[in-house]
């Protein structure tokens, strides 16, 4: 375990102890909820993690580098942003997926675009949002989110 993960465990451990001291019942209840939330997602999480193995075995790193690498940045970024907009997987499992692609040589620009649109732009939830806030608001928010996701991705590509 790296130092970052260890410190997270320590912080969470302290928070847990403090919470237990303050209200045992409330804390135990929240732990039960944490367990049921994890139980709900574990199938999808394990599925995606083993999908990573398949991708890494069957798609050679060279291919990932050419398709998602620096040379192809503009095209792959737009595609990544579009894919992120229509997919509805929890961000939680998106990080290891994207991390694995970056590890074998994918450029971070499409990676960031995908991560940002994945959570901020919702094509699937568009009707729901429209019903609550109206068409104009929903179009403005989702459209701007898409544009800014690409901007964030490009700026990150320059900075890192």
């Amino acid at each position, binding site marked *: 375990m790296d130092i970052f993960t260890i410190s997270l465990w320590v912080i969470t451990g302290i928070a847990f102890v403090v919470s237990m001291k303050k209200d045992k019942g409330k804390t135990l209840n*929240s*732990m039960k909820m*944490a367990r049921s*939330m994890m139980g709900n997602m574990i199938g999808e999480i394990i599925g995606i993690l083993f999908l990573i193995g398949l991708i890494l075995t069957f798609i050679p790193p060279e291919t990932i580098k050419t398709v998602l690498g620096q040379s192809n940045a503009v095209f792959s970024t737009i595609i990544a942003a579009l894919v992120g907009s229509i997919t509805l997987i929890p961000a939680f499992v998106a990080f*290891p997926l994207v991390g694995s692609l970056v590890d074998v040589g994918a450029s971070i620009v499409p990676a960031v675009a995908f991560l940002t649109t994945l959570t901020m732009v919702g094509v699937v*939830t568009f009707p729901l949002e429209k019903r609550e806030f109206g068409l104009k608001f929903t179009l403005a928010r989702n459209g701007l989110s898409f544009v800014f996701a690409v901007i964030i991705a490009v700026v990150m590509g320059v900075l890192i």
Partner: protein
Amino acid sequence: MKKLQRLKKNKLLVLIVLTYIGMYIFRRDKAITSFDNSMYYVIEMLEIMPVVFVLTLLIETWVPKRVIMNSFGENSGVKGYVFSFLLGSLSAGPIYVAFPVCKMLLRKGASVMNIVIILSAWAVVKVPMLANEAKFLGLKFMGIRWILTVISITIMAYLVSKIMGDSLKVVENTKESSKKILKDSDAHIAIDNKYCIGCGICARLAPDNFKVEGGKATVIDNNCLKEVKVKIDEVIDKCPAQAITYD
């Protein structure tokens, strides 16, 4: 029936397992390589997953979200700006869970700008998620993306409020289409199925009244008299999607 539903809910996992079995028969070497490749990520995930979930629920339990919500008013200003970011980043659940919450705040007079900030922060800026991101993509990556995102959200919120001209009206739903009303003797508990995320919190807190079936909560007993009502009140308060109401 239950088993079938479980399979349906985990169709990705089932598909992957079948692929691995097929591969193991025909291309044993490839199956083993894939498995080994995956195990690295499985271990990394196991190291961080419990922390992320425990942290999420501890935040959900202890942050006085009600207090934050109640302090929203017409006067947005710096306080409203900071509170919007706090509310969005400290809440659990996917973005559509934020819709009913934001609508309630709109009715209370929150500005369009703050609503956009809450929705966007709810979507991308989650404290436990940032930990997860740093784990798999590095601290530097997470930090820079976080800063850029906060700046973008601020500009975006300003732009949307200019586009809307602060004229956002709350669109009232027609109850018949969006709510499942269960008729019973005394009181009715209604669950808005569109928003239910099937987290199972209601079924845990009040197992006599709620059950999760096929990924959505359903009401199995509408009895909410006296002592039971206290429980139901808690459930309504705790539901991360605010999907449960009395009708």
